[in-house]
Every structure is written in structure tokens, then in C-alpha cells.
């Protein structure tokens, strides 16, 4: 696991908002979330594949890993989590992230944000 990715996962898992003691934590699962949490908003973060590599004499010296962060929310504005997630991405991935898609699921009523990011590993 790239260390930047581990730091990003820890940062996303510790995302909270609201005044204490009514602090709300975003449920974030790594890789696969097999039980959908009973929450207004939840997140999924995963490391998807190797995007690119620099070779020296046929051996990999630098590797770029690509992953994604998903936010599912019943609230149209993401209940305030969008700004916190993008701030965490900027802190840990610099400029190498982008909003890949934003969709609405008619069946479940969930709004879905997907950010793709690349980290060095």
C-alpha cells in the first residue's frame, strides 16, 4: 500500500463535522462496502489500479496508483461532506485529483459523487 494512500484513508475515516458533543463522523469503508450503512451519507475509498510507471532499465522506479473516493448522500448538497473530502484530497494528493462523475440514483434517491485521484507509491 502506498503511504500517501494510507494517510488519505486515515484522513477520510477521521472526517467529522458539527459542534461537539453532537459531532458527526462520516462512515467510510475501504475497498468494498458489503453492508450499506444506515446513514444519510457514507463514503467508500478504494485503490483501483496502477495508472503509470517510470522504468529504469526495465525496472519500475516510480509508480502512480489510481484510486477513487465515493460519496453517497441523501442530501442534494452532500450534507457538507463534499468540501471536507475535497480538502482532504488536496492535502494528501495535491492537484492530482478530479471529480470524475456526479450522479443521481433514481431507485435509491442517493446522490453519488466520485473523485478519482493518483498517488505515488
Amino acid at each position: 500500500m502506498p503511504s500517501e494512500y494510507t494517510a488519505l484513508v486515515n484522513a477520510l475515516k477521521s472526517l467529522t463535522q458539527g459542534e461537539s458533543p453532537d459531532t458527526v463522523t462520516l462512515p467510510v469503508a475501504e475497498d468494498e462496502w458489503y453492508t450499506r450503512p444506515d446513514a444519510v451519507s457514507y463514503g467508500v475509498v478504494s485503490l483501483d489500479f496502477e495508472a503509470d510507471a517510470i522504468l529504469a532499465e526495465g525496472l519500475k522506479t516510480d509508480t502512480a496508483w489510481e484510486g477513487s473516493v465515493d460519496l453517497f448522500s441523501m442530501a442534494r448538497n452532500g450534507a457538507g461532506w463534499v468540501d471536507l473530502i475535497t480538502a482532504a484530497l488536496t492535502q494528501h494528493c495535491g492537484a492530482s485529483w478530479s471529480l470524475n462523475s456526479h450522479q443521481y440514483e433514481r431507485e435509491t434517491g442517493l446522490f453519488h459523487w466520485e473523485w478519482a485521484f493518483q498517488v505515488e507509491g
Partner: protein
Amino acid sequence: MPFKIEFTGMDELIRKMDKLPEVAAKVAAESLYEGAGVVADAVSGAVQGIATEPFKYAKGGKRRKPSPEEKAIVSNARHGVAKFKNDGNTIQTSIGYQKAGYATLKGKTKPVPVIVNAINSGTSFMQKQPFLRKAFSKSKSAAIATIQAGIEARADQFDLG
């Protein structure tokens, strides 16, 4: 990429410089088309790698894989290089399923891009399989190299007669 343009006198210089944008746009478009083909081939190959399982409803919050029917729709749908756009400074194209049309799945007619997006980005009830992002990221270096090689192969066109 430097190219040499020879001229004698201002008249010839002006004549050649007038011609240059036209030639540059033509060379850029032709090279871009070759590079876009590399990415489009990567997408066609990545579609074959989608994992499937027979359709079942996602129960108990479990996320399912796409069904073989959904994969067949995605792999048979029209996809490839879109029409080129030239806004004067840049020439752009996009690769994907923009004009893939509609498909009927379990008695419901849905736009194909919606099915593609559900597989590529995942939903709350379907596992994510980012085949488009993977194809784009992995073929990026090869596409750039192809475009550069295409421009270099057409270097003689810049010797404006």
C-alpha cells in the same frame, strides 16, 4: 517540436506564415486521430475485462456485479472517437459512449451511457469496475507517443512550397 521554414524575402515569409495555421491544424488533427485510436482500442479491450455474474437483486446492502446482459449491451454499443472540435486554438475530441443510443434491459429502455456509468463509477448497489478510467490512464503514454510520432512523420508538410 521545432520545424525549419526557409524563406528569402518578406513576401515569401508572409505567404508561408499565412499558410502555416492551416497546415498545422491539418497535421494536428491527423495525428490526434491516430492517438485517439490507441485510446479507443484500449477501451474496446477493457470492456472484455468486465466481471459479471447472473442478475440478482442487491439485497441486504450487498453490492452486485453487472449481469452478462449488461456487459453484452456495453460491449456491443457504439463507442469510439467522437467528432473533432476545432475552436481556433485547440483541436479536441472525446472517446466514450456519447452517442451509444438506447438499450432494452429486462423490459425497460435505458440510455446506454447510464449503464456504462453505473459499471464504471459504481452505484450504491453495484460494484465499481472502472474499465474506462483504467483504459484512459493506461493508454495515455502510448497515445501521446503516437501523436508525437505522427507529427514527426508529417514534418515534410511544414516545408510550405
